[in-house]
């Protein structure tokens, strides 16, 4: 029975994950190394990488920075009425439930060229839809929960006592945050940031809808993969897919390492407590 179950598990993993991934590798190298390199260094590929990088950097900075502030206010802020917190909590989760296509569509509805806001921004020469700002907004929407969801439970767990202790010892707010709060949330923040980076790099549906997928303008790596696949450019699609796949694997390894680290820290923490 045991052997059967273990074999079944291996079989499922191979069938569903390992075997399909091997096809990306063979697809990418169908024309050898040179084809692979060529596919990655095409002008449209390089441009797409640049756009993806922009999005990742801007989205990560915003969502990490504001995510931390948000978590702090959500957990510690006593200015929020009691009933408001669960509402905000629920709102934060919403992006997880929304189909990426709808995520992109919302931006079009709100900031599209024919809407009030769209016309308003256009008067300053800023296009949101079918341009970078819209793509960034859409990606920010999709990745918003990651940092907050990692940091809030930790803040709740450590409680306010240590921070109050620091303040009674005369430390300023900033000093308290830097020396007392930050050390305990830094790894959750990093964890959330890694998730944010990975997801903003990989986001496809929302970006596709908002960007219009204009080659050499608003095309990201994922939308280029889609276009290549659509045009039966096997090597092109698979080469970029392989790179994205490798990045995902590295991301998973980093997250795994962080998780292990946290577990070790936590177990040290609890063993100290019990002594």
């Amino acid at each position, binding site marked *: 029975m045991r052997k059967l179950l273990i074999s079944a598990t291996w079989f499922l993993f191979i069938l569903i994950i390992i075997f399909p991934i091997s096809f990306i590798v063979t697809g990418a190298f169908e024309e050898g190394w040179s084809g692979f390199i060529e596919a990655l260094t095409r002008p449209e590929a390089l441009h797409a990488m640049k756009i993806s990088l922009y999005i990742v950097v801007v989205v990560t900075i915003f969502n990490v920075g504001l995510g931390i502030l948000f978590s702090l206010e959500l957990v510690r802020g006593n200015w929020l009425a009691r009933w408001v917190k669960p509402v905000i909590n629920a709102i934060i989760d919403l992006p997880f439930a929304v189909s990426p296509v709808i995520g992109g569509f919302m931006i079009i*509805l709100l900031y599209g060229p024919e809407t009030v806001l769209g016309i308003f921004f256009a008067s300053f020469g800023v296009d949101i839809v079918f341009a970078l700002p819209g793509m960034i907004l859409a990606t920010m929407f999709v990745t918003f929960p990651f940092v907050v969801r990692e940091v809030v439970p930790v803040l709740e767990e450590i409680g306010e006592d240590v921070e109050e202790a620091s303040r009674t010892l005369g430390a300023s707010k900033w000093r308290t945050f830097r020396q007392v709060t930050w050390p305990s949330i830094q790894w959750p923040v990093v964890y959330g940031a890694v998730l944010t980076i990975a997801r903003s790099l990989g986001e496809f549906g929302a970006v596709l809808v908002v960007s219009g997928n204009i080659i050499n303008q608003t095309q990201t790596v994922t939308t280029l993969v889609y276009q290549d696949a659509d045009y039966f450019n096997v090597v092109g699609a698979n080469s970029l897919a392989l790179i994205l796949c490798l990045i995902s694997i590295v991301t998973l390894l980093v997250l795994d390492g962080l998780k292990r680290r946290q577990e070790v820290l936590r177990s040290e923490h609890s063993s100290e407590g019990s002594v």
Partner: protein
Amino acid sequence: MRDKLEKYALRSILIGYLIVLIVAPLSAVYVQGFSLGLSNFWKTVTDEMALHAITLTIRLAVIATLIQIIIGTLIAYVLTRYEFPGKRYLNSLVDLPFALPTAVSGVMFLMVLTPNSFVGQMLDSIGISLLFNQSAIIIGMVFVTFPFIVRAVQPLLENLDEDQVQASYTLGASKWRTFCKVVFPAILPGIIAGSLLAFSRALAEFGVIALISGNIPMETLVASVYIFGQIESFNTEGATAVSVVLLTFSFLVLWITNLTRRRGDI
């Protein structure tokens, strides 16, 4: 005074961020949806193609979730209860389908199932095609929802009191009976929570399905791809109406998930 000003500024920014990023866009969909008027809305939703897309999506998401319940529970069980070589690697691999950009997953299955590949040829020779039909959609949905049930069930299995299992043995119960009567009830909350997540993800999935379903109206066109098509052809009404339906469905699932989670806490 300056301190207070700073405080209010910060709060306004945070609330503003939430509104601009999440609340306003989501409301925009609903506002747009209701501005159609009820009869118009109803007409758009019950359009043959739209209605088919919606029901197809729900039906296939249910099937994919049921498949996932079986394989997810099996994998979670094996990964927590047994020791075997390679276990650690498999355990890390569980999250890969979630981490992989959906466009990449789509290309991947396109490569596997295309009639030119040896898998495609093999399947073809026995008269099966898994590309550009409903089974392709199920494959895509099963792939992207792979981690949810495994990850929801694993912690419950880890926390399962080994003594309870042994108590069942000492009372004469077989392994199978013990699984059904003792282990399964303990992991049921995880299975429910995981399958709700999986279901909602399957409903929303776009990237993989767009590439491998063929997107044939009335046959393999799912709701998210339908919305995309309507946006592409500048039919805001059609996109809005189906979006409202899909969104409402997703929120409902999210709400039920939170409800069950809260009950699980007690």
